[in-house]
């Protein structure tokens, strides 16, 4: 890195000092920020509303559940999903920001996959929506890679010793989607009914799908 950018980024860190002069309540600070940016023409409140609408009604774990259910009923799709997740998820038009490059990883009787982002909170938003608060928390980010079995127990999931746990730390722009195991007793169920069984937690790897 050049001397110039070192100096530049020293200033950048310095800008965080403003927080000692601001009110502690984030609601007040965010309201003031929105007013300021609107006055300066740096944000359009209607665009803020539109982004909220995207995450409230267009993008969420139902997208991922449709991918999983399709893979359960269509072996050719499952094969495409596991060999090129991006392309297969693109077939359902679920690619987008924080989910343009996706790898699907399959849970089997011998392997259980668990997704984390230790450095920030990278998450496959385009298929799962906004991450839950615990996914972004220090306890999950710190422990998923060193004590995955202990973390899973806190979700009520105890895996036998012979099952290999594979943790995926999302350090790049590749996003990981867990393809959970199809539960017993769902033979003959429609794709739509199967999708309704698939939980968000199962697609992160902290839960299993049950038949009811």
């Amino acid at each position, binding site marked *: 890195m050049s001397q110039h950018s070192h100096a530049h980024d020293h200033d950048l860190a310095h800008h965080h000092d403003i927080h000692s002069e601001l009110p502690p309540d984030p609601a007040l600070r*965010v309201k003031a920020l929105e007013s*300021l940016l609107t006055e300066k023409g740096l944000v359009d409140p209607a665009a803020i509303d539109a982004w909220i609408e995207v995450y409230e009604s267009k993008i969420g774990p139902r997208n991922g559940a449709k991918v999983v259910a399709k893979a359960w009923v269509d072996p050719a799709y499952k094969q495409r999903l596991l060999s090129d997740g991006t392309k297969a998820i693109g077939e359902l038009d679920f690619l987008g920001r924080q989910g343009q490059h996706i790898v699907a990883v399959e849970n089997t009787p011998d392997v259980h996959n668990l997704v984390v982002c230790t450095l920030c909170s990278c998450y496959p938003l385009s298929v799962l929506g906004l991450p839950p608060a615990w996914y972004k928390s220090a306890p999950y980010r710190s422990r998923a890679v060193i004590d995955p079995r202990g973390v899973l127990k806190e979700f009520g999931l105890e895996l036998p010793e012979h099952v290999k746990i594979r943790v995926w730390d999302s*350090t790049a722009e590749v996003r990981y989607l867990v393809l959970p195991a199809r539960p017993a007793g769902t033979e003959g169920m429609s794709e739509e009914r199967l999708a309704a069984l698939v939980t968000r937690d199962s697609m992160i790897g902290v839960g299993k799908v049950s038949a009811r």
Partner: protein
Amino acid sequence: MNGVHDMGGMHGHGPVAPEDEKHEPLWHAPWEARMLGITRSMTYPKGFNIDRFRHIRELMPPHLYLARSYYDHWYAVCVAALLNGGLATKEEIKSGHAAAGSAKRNDAARADQVWTSQKTQGIFTREVATPPQFATGQRVRARNINPTGHTRLPRYVRGKVGVVQIHHGGHVFPDTNAHVQGEAPQHLYTVAFSMRELWGADASARDETCVDLWESYLEPA
């Protein structure tokens, strides 16, 4: 940078305490939704990018990083970016109003551009002219480097040996992009490390952690 954000393997943060997904609200307060919308749609300084966003977040003082909630981190990043880029002053941030006589821009992202942004932005694959240096199945060592700037090489894998699982092709290199020094794409690999290699003899002999690492983070092992 070796910051507080690099949390993999730390102890002392307590249990995960998940909320039941059936009952967890999308937002825990209305301001979180506004902050998400601001972050997605506001005008940033020229050359701004997601890696720079992550780096500014890492530059938060550790006590603030640990004490403040996720969307409050986003607030801190947006404010630092605005101040650093000269798009707002400290007084303006504090008052919530534009300084008298300051110019108003008319190029903010519009609501009708949001869905296109959602569908088309965030593609980080790039052509790389050089052939990949590593192949799947090959043993590699994560280099022991400690850059003071942005990096996506977590401390807990530095110096450790793993096996290449996936070659993802060329991806934008965050370590330069975060400092607005260009995308400088490199080959990106997923490398699997055994828990024993990462955490010693007491760790599981069966379990492993896979980490996405750029070519310059790696050396043959």
